[in-house]
């Protein structure tokens, strides 16, 4: 290899995005791409927690929702500018993650899964029942679009660029994090918690910090979602959404930043394709999940590489 591939990727990837923005004329596709971007953020955040720190969360939609509802409440009820609401949304999400993280991350395995699931459920019920603030089950209307001086992000193309610029930024942040002192410590927790402790890593505190970071990513996605759709309702942040985020991470391939991108792309597009199956959609979707996990438990990104390598060695 002449040039390290992880460097080239930072050229290729933005070019693809810029080109996509220029050539995709149809704003429906831009819309789909924007949703893919938002989902990538979600998957990226959870991937840090699940893929790198090895801690499962079945309640991540809660942070997604907290991000969305905080900005909605602040911009609509208190008339704040969305850009002022953004740091608040991230901070609220981080604070909740901090409070919840302390007792929850002491749990392991299925118990951790159940703890996070329960948390997600409770937050969902809060969204639904606190109707004075959240608009209750019928949802929250009138969220303003994003503007930055003269640039309006209400158009599909501008929003597409905004979302993907943020995705790009988060990809870089994640990548830098993973390949740093903290990132190595994080990955060491995944591989052997006891050895990590013996290396002087305060595993509990690190786990909580990653949990908070991953909550912030999710809240960012929630913020973007809220100002894109300009309407939110509790149904968009329920248990099934949490599961879908987990699925994105697992199907894409855990412990690969780019796997999150692929997982998010697949899981966003899959339902669109499956419309062709109409009535069979759920059956096919369930089958795909099962079959992928049975055959390629490493996730598709890694799985496809494995298959490619095998065929290469066989041909030799």
């Amino acid at each position, binding site marked *: 290899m002449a040039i390290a591939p992880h460097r080239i990727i930072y050229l290729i990837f933005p070019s693809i995005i810029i080109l996509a923005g220029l050539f995709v004329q149809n704003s429906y596709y831009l819309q789909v791409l924007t949703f893919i971007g938002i989902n990538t953020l979600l998957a990226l955040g959870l991937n840090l927690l699940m893929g790198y720190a090895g801690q499962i969360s079945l309640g991540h939609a809660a942070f997604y929702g907290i991000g969305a509802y905080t900005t909605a409440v602040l911009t609509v009820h208190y008339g704040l500018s969305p850009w002022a609401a953004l740091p608040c949304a991230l901070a609220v999400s981080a604070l909740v993650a901090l409070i919840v993280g302390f007792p929850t991350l002491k749990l392991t395995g299925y118990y951790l899964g159940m703890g996070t699931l329960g948390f997600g459920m409770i937050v969902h019920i809060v969204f639904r029942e606190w109707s004075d603030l959240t608009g209750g089950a019928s949802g929250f209307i009138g969220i303003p679009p994003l503007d930055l001086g003269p640039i309006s992000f209400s158009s599909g193309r501008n929003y597409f660029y905004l979302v993907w610029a943020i995705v790009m930024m988060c990809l870089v942040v994640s990548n830098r994090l993973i390949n740093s002192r903290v990132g190595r410590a994080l990955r060491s927790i*995944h591989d052997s918690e006891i*050895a990590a*402790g013996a290396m002087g*890593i305060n595993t509990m505190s690190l786990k909580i910090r990653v949990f908070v970071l991953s909550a912030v990513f999710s809240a960012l996605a929630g913020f973007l979602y809220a100002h894109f759709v300009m309407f939110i309702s509790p149904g968009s942040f329920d248990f099934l959404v949490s599961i879908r985020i987990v699925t994105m991470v697992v199907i894409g391939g855990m412990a690969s930043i780019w796997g999150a991108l692929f997982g998010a792309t697949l899981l966003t597009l899959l339902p669109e394709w499956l419309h062709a199956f109409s009535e069979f959609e759920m059956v096919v979707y369930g089958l795909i999940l099962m079959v992928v996990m049975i055959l390629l438990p490493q996730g598709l990104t890694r799985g496809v590489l494995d298959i490619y390598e095998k065929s290469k060695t066989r041909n030799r």
Partner: protein
Amino acid sequence: MKNRKQETADTSDLLAVQSLSKAFGGLQALYDVSFTVERGTIYGLIGPNGAGKTTLFNLITGVFSPDEGRILFENKEIQGIPIYDVVKTGIARTFQNVELFGGMTVLENVMVGCHVRSRSGFLGAVSRLPRVMKEERRIKQKSLELLDFVGLMPYSDQKSTDIPLGRQRMLEIARALAAVPDLLLLDEPAAGLNAVETRSLGELIAKIKEKGITMILVEHDMSLTMKVSDMVVVLDQGQKIAEGVPKDIQSDETVMAAYLGKSG
């Protein structure tokens, strides 16, 4: 980085274990064990299965806290300190079952070892300020030096679990050394190694000793233990039954009985 004291003449005790006891449920894993480790020496810790050797290791490194007794390291009490702070005081360890970070390369494993001797955090990682990058370079260089020291340089880019077991043991030692310890605890470093590997392990231990690092060695390969240790402590059923230089231990009747069963 922590300043290393050049210890040559000073032979004061580095570690003192004083009447340590620990019970799990009804099982008394360790009962009233005391011994001291001199700076710059190698201490062999032996005993049959279930004698409490690993428990002792876990107490010293802060995995558990003792029910009773004290652990003095450089004259400071360290019992009950959480595991990650114990490392900071200067105690590093390896593991009986090779606890490498399988998802990382050989080099990265050692770099994790540098954790306590470096500072940059989340913001540093993301910002990549010159200060952070400098530290990163320093960590990398230090790790490469250590790999060279244990002879793993050619493997630095391989996945840590892909190299042979013997090398993995070496890697664990390099990783522990990256924490710049004063005291290194080796938990059965020769288990599963062949004769050649065991021999180079012995040589490595000698080299580490030359650097002035004190070691406690739990090992079943008696030939190795007896060869490298300056002092040997024998545990049986949670109690210290003998302590002395290897020659004496090898001919000690109590030790013999503990291992071979009471004869006659």
